[in-house]
């Protein structure tokens, strides 16, 4: 996993909104999902602005529609996004409270992957669906039956959504023609409600399934189509099949119209082409930036029942936004000292949540800020500080106080991420607690080498930094930054004459107290192995 590269700065130039209005929601995407979401949001009392091409002009009352408009830029923060659109006749900016990406996927047929070309008898699944929907004429069979071959995930993996579409197409096909369908695949994807049952019904209805392991079929062109040459996986016999119609499956790709939203979230440089990270930390349709939601194609969710599920999650997310600028138990929002800030834009580039905008100076939006503290430790001028949690001392005092109270073995200072290590510590039991003095931090990515050196200066025999596994960090790349900094720290310690074996960086999960205990014990052993003349 990388962090956003230096070239990737999109400048959010809008200041924090003085008044936040969550009532107005921009839904990008005019197809079924977008329209249904617009209708549901309207029912729940939101005012919806729908952008996208739609054939259905029956919009819910109160929903505005912008047709043939393209979103160019998304500036600002939740409750006050300034979205710029371009039309054929010019451009315009609208203010909305929430932005929802609900565009359909780009369905890209896999012709090149199969080494074939579209032709009269070689079409994509979407095209077949369109013909069946409109009741148009299908190609004529060469013999008594219409032999239709469906390629499903032979090249490039498929998913239950694709198989549901293929089963539907087969059912519709058999209503309009005397057909013999075939499905050529590698794995039949049935991990969705009712799909296994449908698979068996389609098979019992006469569709032939060929499941390939190694070598797949070869397509040889003929004057009016092509021949499929393959080895039957079950019987091991060489076969040739001349389909009347070859239906090619498609990749679901995220639409290119996601770009302005990807730009608005710095960490999207790492999660692109999707708006939502794959991490389980992001439930439902939430993205790292508060107020921007991602459905379907924007988050790679393509099951046959996923649209309904995502629409419901979007309505809930829109209704449960937390605008609290001072959530209890968290440090204060970062404060940027204008005297030290050199406008290097490092904080703007690295904030995983897109909580920092830039006018004349970098400015933090307290509602969008998740208090991960990455900006504070990454700022090259050390211009950024986070106020400690209300009622608690600052981190330097905590380090000193913890060590002053510790006796003997307890002189390990452990910086523990609140989402993983701190919870693992709580389940680890009382006995291990005597070995270390814990400092709970919002993210491992906020532990500064200065804190680590301070701990050693205050008498720590060792320092542990523990955060979430790579891929499970709520700040996306907090762990990656922390791991990089751990390397720097070891070099600094060597220069300072401290054996780097006294320092350990590790990742673990909140449900693995065993890993936590093992890390502490291992560090203790390392420390004991170091000559006592070391200081």
């Amino acid at each position, binding site marked *: 996993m990388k962090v956003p590269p230096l070239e990737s700065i999109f400048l959010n130039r809008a200041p924090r909104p003085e008044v936040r209005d969550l009532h107005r929601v921009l839904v990008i995407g005019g197809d079924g999902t977008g329209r249904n979401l617009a209708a549901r949001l309207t029912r729940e009392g939101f005012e919806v602005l729908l952008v996208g091409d739609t054939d259905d002009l029956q919009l819910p009352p109160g929903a505005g529609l912008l047709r043939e408009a393209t979103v160019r830029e998304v500036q600002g923060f939740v409750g006050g996004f300034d979205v710029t659109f371009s039309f054929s006749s010019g451009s315009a900016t609208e203010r909305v409270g929430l932005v929802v990406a609900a565009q359909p996927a780009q369905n890209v047929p896999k012709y090149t992957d199969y080494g074939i070309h579209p032709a009269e008898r070689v079409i994509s699944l979407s095209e077949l669906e369109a013909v069946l929907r409109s009741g148009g004429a299908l190609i004529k069979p060469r013999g008594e039956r219409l032999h239709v071959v469906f390629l499903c995930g032979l090249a490039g993996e498929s*998913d239950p959504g694709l198989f549901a579409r293929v089963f539907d197409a087969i059912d519709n096909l058999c209503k309009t023609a005397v057909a013999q369908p075939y499905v050529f695949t590698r794995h039949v994807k049935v991990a969705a409600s009712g799909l296994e049952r449908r698979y068996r019904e389609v098979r019992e209805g006469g569709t032939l399934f060929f499941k390939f392991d190694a070598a797949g079929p070869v397509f040889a062109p003929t004057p009016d189509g092509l021949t499929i040459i393959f080895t039957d996986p079950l019987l091991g016999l060489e076969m040739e099949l001349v389909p009347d119609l070859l239906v090619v499956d498609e990749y679901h790709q995220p639409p290119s119209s996601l770009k302005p939203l990807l730009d608005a979230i710095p960490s999207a440089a790492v999660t692109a082409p999707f708006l939502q990270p794959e991490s389980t930390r992001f439930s439902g349709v939430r993205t790292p930036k508060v107020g921007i939601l991602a459905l379907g194609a924007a988050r790679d969710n393509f099951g046959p029942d996923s649209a*309904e599920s995502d629409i419901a999650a979007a309505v809930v997310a829109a209704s449960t936004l937390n605008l609290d600028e001072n959530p209890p138990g968290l440090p204060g929002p970062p404060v940027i000292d204008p005297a030290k800030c050199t406008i290097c834009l490092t904080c703007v580039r690295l904030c995983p949540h897109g909580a920092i905008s830039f006018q004349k100076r970098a400015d933090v939006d307290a509602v969008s800020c998740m208090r991960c503290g990455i900006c504070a430790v990454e700022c090259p001028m050390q211009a950024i500080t986070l106020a400690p949690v209300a009622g608690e001392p600052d981190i330097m005092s905590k380090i000193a106080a913890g060590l002053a109270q510790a006796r003997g073995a307890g002189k390990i200072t452990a910086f523990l991420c609140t989402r993983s290590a701190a919870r693992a510590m709580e389940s680890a039991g009382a006995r291990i607690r005597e070995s270390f003095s814990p400092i709970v931090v919002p993210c491992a990515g906020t532990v500064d080498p200065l804190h680590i050196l301070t701990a050693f200066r205050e008498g720590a025999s060792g320092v542990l930094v523990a955060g979430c*596994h790579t891929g499970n960090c709520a700040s996306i790349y907090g762990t990656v930054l922390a791991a990089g900094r751990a390397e720097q720290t070891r070099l600094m310690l060597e220069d300072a004459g401290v054996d780097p074996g006294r320092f350990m960086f590790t990742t673990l999960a*909140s449900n693995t107290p065993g890993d936590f205990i093992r890390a502490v014990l291992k560090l203790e052993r390392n420390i004991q192995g170091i000559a006592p003349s070391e200081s």
Partner: protein
Amino acid sequence: MKTDAVIIGGGVAGLWCAGELARLGFQSLIVEKRPYAGGHVGRYCCKATDQCQRCGACLLEDVLAEVEKSDRINCLLRANVLTAARTDGLFSLTLSQLPTRIHPDTCNRCGKCLDVCPVPGALERSPSDNTIFLNEESCLFYKDGTCQACAETCRENAVTLEGSAGELQVNARVVVLASGFKAFDPLEKPRFGYGRVPGVITGLELDTMLRTDNFDVGQGETEIRSVGFIQCVGSRDPKIGRNYCSRVCCGYALRLARLLRHRFPGMEPSMFYMDIQTFDRDFERRLAEASREVRLIRAIPAEIRVGSDNRPELIYQGPNEQRVFESFDVVVLSVGISPDPSLASLGEVFGVGANQDSFLGREHDDVCTGSSGVFVAGTAQGPKSIEETVSHAIRTAGEAASYLKRIDRGEES
């Protein structure tokens, strides 16, 4: 007691639903039959190798932390629903709650009671945090009053065996059925040798052993090296009434296999499958990675028997239709998600029918049940992964909240 929503089941679905309802402004009461919340997920291990594998197990810790903090959520443990009636849109439920047998504040978790208990399973430790619980169904004291070994042994006086269940009345406007699933019992497929052939375990058992650090690979000649995962045990099997894919087994088996390789570098895992279901983004690449660490065999063994060396021996059809006999040190049956036996009575109490696969409610992951004011969340409705369960619970909370707002506006009865 009055609340907005009663949620039957304190597993990840019930907990997450309560959390969302709280964010939406509503109160809930979770009714959990066990002495602890967390359901099945509390027994699953983290599958991370050098990176998170997105199994979702730690989502439970996230939601538990949130639920504990919330003042809109109450949780009753050791509680069950006896009856429910609905008048004028209001549910009145009678709950039964067993008293606390082992007091968590007094118990020092020394485990001496576990050592003296004559019945396996009557006392157990929670895999999450080592607290000790008593299961009355297995305990001799509740059968014939003959044994009080735990109470007599405990030096902290943390055990109270006397006292019977109390009853409580609760009024609620909405009910959420989130009672979870039962893992498929591999005894229903005797040819796989579970309980008969040593070394045959279920995926759930492996998960729990890894979670509690109880998976011992041994050393030298008896070291566990070859592990065979058998997929679709209790899934995609109409002959035994399981005409559905359990959705999670390909994912959990491959993640477990990779975790074993990561932790015990000498391990050689194999996986016997029919089809491999997609469970990750960019699955093509991920499956290719997995296939470099796990031997994938497209065949389901016909039988597992005790081999001549006392290890489990599998018999399956090889690529040229020949019969292959292969022994493993351990065989893991990837058991699927089956409907919990309590669903039938729960359905009766709340007027909710079973769907085609005998889970509760409707098809297509619907959260509405057709019974007014009654919703379903999680695997009670059908097989789902942990992430899918969380999405489902969010959806359920949304529907329940909309329904409650309609009641407030006088649009529902």
